[in-house]
């Protein structure tokens, strides 16, 4: 019998280890089976799995995937610096040699408040915004607490753009696309968007992105987001 503990990095045998997960919770069922709650280490996905379908992943494979994630961030930053016409067309001063011009550009770009349910992703997001010289605040707030703290954070930071991310995923695949309880965290993103829009109704024109992997796109948009994730339903 394989032994797993919280924090182990694993892959699902039935999915040919397509995604690497960290075990975040172990649930014991009444018939003494163990169900593992998993969070993607390079994807914004949450899933569960019986212990029999899991195997430990070689450290080298984990390092390789982490490097790949890092390189996505670095590549994007390099792309922006080389092609300002694509991503920072109207904020060229961000990469100016003059500190005066750089500072005024930072002040002029929209202010971002980003809540991420994953600590590792929060850190990487901050690194990304900083590298581009953007005016951003990133807070690590778990998905089910985001709605509770959003009002005070909006009042404190007065952002122009709100980003709500973390992990998500469908519980039963291939069914229940319109059932909010078939999504692990979409309802928390929806509630947070609604709370943010209440604050927004007091005169601030807030742009909102919300969602993670496999989120309930239609419901997040209906709650008032400008952009949301996972509109496409997958066929295989």
């Amino acid at each position, binding site marked *: 019998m394989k032994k797993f503990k919280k924090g182990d990095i694993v892959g699902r045998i039935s999915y040919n280890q397509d995604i690497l997960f960290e075990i975040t919770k172990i649930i014991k069922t009444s018939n003494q089976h163990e169900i593992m709650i998993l969070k993607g280490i*390079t*994807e*914004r*996905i949450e899933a569960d799995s019986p212990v029999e379908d899991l195997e430990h992943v070689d450290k080298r494979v984990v390092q390789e995937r982490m490097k790949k994630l890092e390189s*996505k*961030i670095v590549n*994007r930053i390099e792309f*922006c610096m080389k092609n300002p016409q*694509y*991503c*920072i*067309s*109207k*904020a060229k001063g*961000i990469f100016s040699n003059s500190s005066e011009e750089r500072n*005024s550009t930072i002040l*002029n*770009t*929209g*202010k*971002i408040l*980003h809540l991420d349910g994953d600590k590792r*992703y929060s850190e990487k*997001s901050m690194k*990304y*915004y900083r590298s*581009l010289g*953007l*005016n*951003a605040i990133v807070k690590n707030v778990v998905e089910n607490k985001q709605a509770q703290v959003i009002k005070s954070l909006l009042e404190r930071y007065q952002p*122009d*753009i709100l*980003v709500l991310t973390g992990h998500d995923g*469908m519980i039963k*695949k*291939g*069914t229940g*696309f319109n059932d909010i309880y078939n999504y692990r965290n979409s309802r928390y993103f929806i509630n947070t968007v609604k709370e943010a829009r209440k604050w927004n109704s007091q005169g601030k*024109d807030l*742009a909102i*992105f919300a*969602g*993670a*992997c*496999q*989120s309930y*796109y239609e419901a997040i*948009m209906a709650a008032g*987001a*400008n*952009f*949301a*994730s*996972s*509109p*496409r*339903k*997958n*066929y*295989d």
Partner: protein
Amino acid sequence: MLLLLGRIMIDFIDPLIVAERIATTENTKYLTIRDIKDELRDGEEGVSGIGSMGKKVLS
């Protein structure tokens, strides 16, 4: 027979690109998903929406 499995995954960096583009687009312009889709992993299939006004203040 096709089997409906679930919803599409997004890239870690996709939400950051959307936020970055809104932040650096002039506040006189409306940014749509079509302006951003080519920079996202699966384009409009991974992220979509109604768009937003840019947030960069012209000085």
